[in-house]
């Protein structure tokens, strides 16, 4: 029943989209609005139906039978609907239609832009029909209970991380559609740049949140490489993030100074293409990743075709707009020129990530070598390239639009205190990387403090959000470098399992409290209780092992607790009746890292809901 309904909605959506694309010029205004409304609804329905299938465990749908278990808790059943490839593509279409419907509310002159959104939507509907239709009938389903969701995915972040990341990726479709419209019509209306800014901020908000949640999840699971591993799947989310960051900065110039217009529009194109490229790379299995997804060459090829089609279209628009490129006029020491520099650095950084991500593919084809590109490469390229951008961040917000005078006194003060801070930091921590990080970040923090009086006087949300965003980037860098440089890793073995105490460090004492067993709806749990004492502070940890039904799969569950900004992270290495081996990791300042990302997300959230307008 649900199965047929799902199929009907997919095909009726296809029919409606096709008829709008071919006939919209003949439609009256109210009729085309009606058509678009039905497109939006029929586009959302297949995913909702699949989700209902999961909730009521309708195992006549093959996808439900292979991805959920009848006794799974409800929220995992809901989340299972995007647990598989087919479901996640339906979610993708669902979100395109959500954006379509919200966009219809905000723009009266919608046809030209909506057309471009539908051109993307239709390629994904064909994708579903040709290679990833989840509505496949399963015969003889009456006895089965379902294969169950992969136990490693059973985490509360699995419920929110994928949809939020998708909201971020697909939000870029609106700037893309607007940019295609403006570049092909060669009319650059100012109000559309405000729209681009608004929508790119919305996607940037979700994209950042999605990346941070993913990072936190990877940090919480064992063997996923920690909070950031430069894994291809992580990188492909970073590329659109970097381009969208650049886009937000350049669009501000386009609105305020009427310059960098073509540049911003091209960024819109490439940010969205980067998002789709990421999906292609993840789904095609061309590149070895820790976070792998089930893949199939046909699906990959189809997505590659979409990327190639969009890319050639973007190049065509680039060539068409080339002659307009030379009209921008700049003063060197002005806010707009610094924003342009920000763009240059961010785009170069995106380029290095892109090359690092696809290089293994080339190495395999050209040199027949299997390589993996990890942290050493990115420390050498990405970190070095973004360093000057971080330095500029301290002064850029102080500059006004147009010409500025050089404030030599300020620069001398800033440089000398920064050098002083660098020396102090080196003397205290004796670590060259952290010294470098404090030299980079101190100017931003200092200038943020200096700006507090004008922040209180000025009270504009734009200023506040920009102030907070830059400050949180500085805090983030400090925390990230500190936690990576000063973390510690201990292994302890308890051969007597009742109340044994050991010192793993002269300052850190670990006591084993006992072992307990409990049973839950779809798993058994064995928990080890430990107490850690570090210079007077007491931290209780309870790492565990879960044994899942129906598969009998055993997973190792991390237990972590924080004291202020520091985090202790423990896992059971092995457990027998009278022998327990634990791994305990000490991560200093990691919570400052999470806090700074939350502040960053809050800052952009503020600017989305601000009242005042750029004029």
């Amino acid at each position, binding site marked *: 029943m649900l199965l047929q309904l799902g199929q009907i909605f997919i095909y009726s959506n296809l029919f409606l989209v096709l008829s709008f694309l071919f006939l919209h010029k003949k439609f009256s205004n109210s009729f085309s609005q009606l058509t678009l409304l039905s497109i939006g609804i029929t586009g959302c329905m297949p995913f909702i139906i699949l989700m209902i299938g999961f909730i009521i465990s309708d195992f006549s749908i093959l996808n439900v039978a*292979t*991805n959920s278990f009848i006794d799974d808790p409800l929220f995992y059943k809901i989340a299972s609907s995007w647990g*598989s*490839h087919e479901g996640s593509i339906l979610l993708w279409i669902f979100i395109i239609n959500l954006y379509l419907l919200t966009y219809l509310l905000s723009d009266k002159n919608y046809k030209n832009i909506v057309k471009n959104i539908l051109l993307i939507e239709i390629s994904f509907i064909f994708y579903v029909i040709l290679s990833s239709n989840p509505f496949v009938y*399963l015969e003889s389903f009456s006895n*089965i*209970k379902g*294969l169950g969701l*992969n*136990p*490693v995915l059973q985490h509360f972040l699995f419920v929110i991380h994928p949809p939020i990341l998708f909201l971020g990726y697909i939000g870029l479709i609106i700037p893309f559609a607007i940019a295609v419209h403006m570049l092909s019509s060669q009319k650059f209306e100012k109000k559309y740049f405000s729209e681009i800014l608004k929508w790119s901020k919305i996607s940037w908000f979700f994209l950042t949140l999605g990346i941070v949640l993913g990072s936190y999840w990877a940090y919480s*699971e*064992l*063997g*996923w*490489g920690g909070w950031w591993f430069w894994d291809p799947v992580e990188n492909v989310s970073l590329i659109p993030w970097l381009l969208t960051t650049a886009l937000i900065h350049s669009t501000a110039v386009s609105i305020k100074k009427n310059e960098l217009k073509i540049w911003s529009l091209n960024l819109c194109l490439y940010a969205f293409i980067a998002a789709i490229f990421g999906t292609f790379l993840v789904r095609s299995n061309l590149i*070895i*990743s*820790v*976070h*792998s*997804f*089930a893949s199939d060459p046909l699906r990959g090829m189809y997505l590659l075709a979409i990327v190639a089609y969009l890319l050639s279209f973007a190049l065509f628009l680039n060539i068409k707009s080339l002659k307009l490129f030379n009209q921008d*006029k*700049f*003063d*060197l020491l002005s806010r707009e020129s610094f924003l342009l520099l920000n763009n*240059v650095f961010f785009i*170069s*950084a995106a*380029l290095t990530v892109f*090359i*690092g991500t696809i*290089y*293994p593919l080339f190495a395999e084809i050209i040199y027949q*070598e*299997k*390589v*993996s*590109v*990890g942290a*050493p490469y990115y*420390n*050498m*390229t990405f970190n*070095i*390239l973004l360093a000057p951008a971080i330095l500029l961040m301290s002064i850029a917000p102080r500059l006004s639009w147009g010409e500025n005078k050089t404030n030599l006194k300020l620069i001398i003060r800033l440089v000398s205190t920064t050098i002083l801070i660098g020396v102090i930091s080196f003397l205290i921590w004796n670590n060259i990387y952290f010294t470098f990080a404090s030299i980079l970040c101190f100017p931003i923090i200092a200038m943020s403090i200096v700006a507090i009086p004008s922040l209180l006087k000025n009270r504009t949300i734009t200023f506040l959000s920009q102030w907070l965003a830059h400050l949180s980037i500085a805090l983030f860098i400090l925390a990230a470098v500190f936690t990576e440089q000063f973390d510690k890793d201990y*292994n*302890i*073995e308890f051969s007597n399992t009742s109340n044994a105490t050991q010192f793993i460090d002269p300052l850190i004492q670990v006591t084993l409290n006992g072992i307990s067993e409990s049973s839950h709806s779809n798993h058994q749990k064995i928990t080890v209780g430990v107490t850690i004492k570090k210079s007077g502070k007491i931290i209780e940890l309870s790492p565990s092992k879960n044994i899942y039904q*129906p*598969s*009998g*799969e*055993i*997973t*190792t569950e991390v237990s972590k607790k924080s004291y202020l900004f520091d985090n202790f992270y423990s896992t059971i*290495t092995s457990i027998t009746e009278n022998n327990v*081996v634990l*791994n305990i990791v000490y991560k200093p300042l990691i919570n400052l890292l999470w806090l700074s990302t939350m502040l960053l997300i809050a800052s952009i959230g503020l600017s989305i809901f601000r009242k005042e307008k750029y004029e």
Partner: protein
Amino acid sequence: MKFQKINKQLKNRIIFFIIIFVCFSSSIYLISYALKDKISFFYSPSEINKLKISEDQLIRVGGLLKKNTLKLRDAIWYFEIIDDGGMSVSVVFNKTLPNLVEENKGIIVEGLLRNRILIANTVLAKHDENYMSQSAVDKMKSKGVWRGD
């Protein structure tokens, strides 16, 4: 006056082009340098036995976790990785093994090679949404609920 203005704009533009040029060319230089020296190679166990690999070179080794080799002694894991050719390499790892690491299943290890033994600093676990461990598949087959393959 007008000439001066145009001149100034030209000067600004040239400076911008130089900055952009320097930035992009240095990124190309950094990328090519880093791709030569800062990547880790991915080997199979038979390649490790065949090739000469520097002890300072961070490498990744992939293959299957050999049956009956996974042992824990003094809080340290010992196991072997085997490939299609039947060659294997011994691995030492002193942290907790991630989920889904199981005998006869695929495994990826990153570390340094010392005396033909791989001192692992990271063991990576792949997490595919369709993943099922062999024991789980066997169990489900015996219960008659398995529909894969």
